């Protein structure tokens, strides 16, 4: 059993993969907490897809692909916020318009190239086994910056997520933090991009945190549990892909889906949910 668990990690690329997944999981838990409870699920998907424009430009120009994705995702986050504020359309419509524009730019640029290279596909579908040391450092730095920001501004982010109008009346710059929340999602998407891929990254923002929210009642505990669940699913998915020889990122997402269903089944039984929450969070009757 121990051998079965440890065997994959005799390879450096597997150790690197596990480390990137750990970093990604923490970010998915923390940012996913805001995404799930602020109803930003569509934004997460949109930002991931929009990053393709940056990936494409970087590919063509020879710049760093991670940096390109970051710029594209952050610009899209700001564009979504701006469109939402200005246009007399629903937020969903605004997001839909902005992200398809960015995604189309990406496809358009790539269509000029003769063939999709494997390296490009690793951004679309994720290629955790192909992460370089540079990717590892890039992800880690972004993750640390993001966590420092959340730590420094947690109260502001919480107030704005919960009740933006009231937050404004207490002096929190609501608009700034609404934009900041979207930028955080953009950064989270980029952290996870190489590991999970554009197509599936949103799943890791949503599923682990939603699983935690089935049995927990406060945002900080949901974020921590979400991160742990994300890492558990990521490690399990990594093993599955190692032994079964299948692609890693869909394996991780499917494990996460299975975990969600199991927790849902357990907590759906009456009484389990409140008692678990009380035990874990010290909630009084």
């Amino acid at each position, binding site marked *: 059993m121990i051998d079965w668990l440890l065997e994959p990690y005799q390879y450096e690329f597997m150790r690197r993969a596990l480390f990137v997944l750990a970093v990604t999981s923490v970010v998915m838990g923390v940012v996913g907490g805001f995404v799930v*409870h602020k109803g930003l699920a569509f934004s997460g998907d949109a930002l991931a897809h929009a990053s393709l424009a940056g990936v494409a430009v970087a590919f063509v120009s020879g710049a760093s692909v991670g940096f390109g994705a970051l710029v594209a995702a952050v610009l899209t986050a700001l564009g979504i916020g701006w469109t939402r504020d200005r246009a007399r359309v629903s937020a969903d419509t605004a997001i839909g318009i902005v992200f398809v524009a960015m995604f189309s730019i990406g496809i358009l640029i790539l269509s000029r190239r003769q063939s999709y290279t494997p390296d490009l596909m690793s951004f679309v579908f994720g290629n955790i086994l192909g992460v370089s040391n540079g990717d590892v450092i890039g992800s880690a730095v972004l993750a640390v910056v993001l966590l420092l920001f959340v*730590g*420094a*501004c*947690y*109260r*502001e982010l*919480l*107030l704005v*997520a*919960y*009740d933006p*109008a*009231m*937050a*404004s*009346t*207490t*002096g*929190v710059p609501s608009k700034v933090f609404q934009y900041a929340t979207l930028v955080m999602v953009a950064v989270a998407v980029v952290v996870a991009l190489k590991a999970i891929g554009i197509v599936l990254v949103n799943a890791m923002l949503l599923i682990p945190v939603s699983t935690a*929210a089935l049995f*927990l*009642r*406060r*945002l900080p505990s*949901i974020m921590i549990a979400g991160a742990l669940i994300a890492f558990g699913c990521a490690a399990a998915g990594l093993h599955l892909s190692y032994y079964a020889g299948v692609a890693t990122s869909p394996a991780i997402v499917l494990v996460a889906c299975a975990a969600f269903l199991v927790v849902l089944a357990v907590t759906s039984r009456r009484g389990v949910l409140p008692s678990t*929450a009380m035990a874990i*969070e*010290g*909630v*009084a009757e």
Partner: protein
Amino acid sequence: MALEGRHVPAREPLAEHHHAVSALEVRHLTAGYPGMPPAIEDVSLRVPVGEIVGLIGPNGAGKSTLFKSILGLMSPTSGEVLAFGRPVREARADIAYMPQVEEVDWAFPVSVLDVVLMGRYHGPRPFLGWSKGDREASMVALERVRLAPYASRQVGQLSGGQRRRVLMARAIARGARLLLLDEPFAGLDAAVQHDLLAILDDLASEGRSIFLATHDLSCVANSCDEACCLNKRVIAAGLPSEVLTESILTATFERHLLAIPQAAEVVRFADDEHAHEHSHRGTR
């Protein structure tokens, strides 16, 4: 009338201190959404220190626009708003706002205490979170609305009346001298409404000033020191007994309400009830 003698013992000394300055003063305020006719026009009103002023008007009268403009959530086209003689922007610590209960996301994973703590926000404290003083003040506010035993519940588990009490506790925890309450009684039964009114009475008797929007005429007749009728403009303002008359209400609501023939009766009955309540309270 019983109304006039109500808060006097506790309030009068405080009121004298602040005699010159109103808790809230709105001067010739015109505001609305861009590209639309103004929702409120040339609105002027005052909330004296230590008084409860009730704002009434039909749907679409501009009550929300007035609140948003007062709070700085919307920029007025013209006019100004002063809280304790200063622009609202500079008086944030003195103002607490209670939104309509529908505007809050009750499914959000926060506890009752988490929500009340939000009222204590007075500026950034990077990495430090809430202080011990913030927690203590929040618990005191929760005790005041009798929700202390529910502090660690998720807010979604509370009933409608309890949810309003949480929002009220959040406003109280702020320690503000002026409370702006948007429809605090909507959809509550008489008993719960009575509880909330008793809390407001206490706050006013401490010298806090309260400006509340409501649809409930009898609540204004019963419990407000002054009434203000709004329908795009201020139709009338003054003592509830003077303002809640047939002609003013007809002008405010733009129709002859069925209730109006009894309006005077409602006021009188309410006063009787209040007189009774007052003597009862005196014995507590």
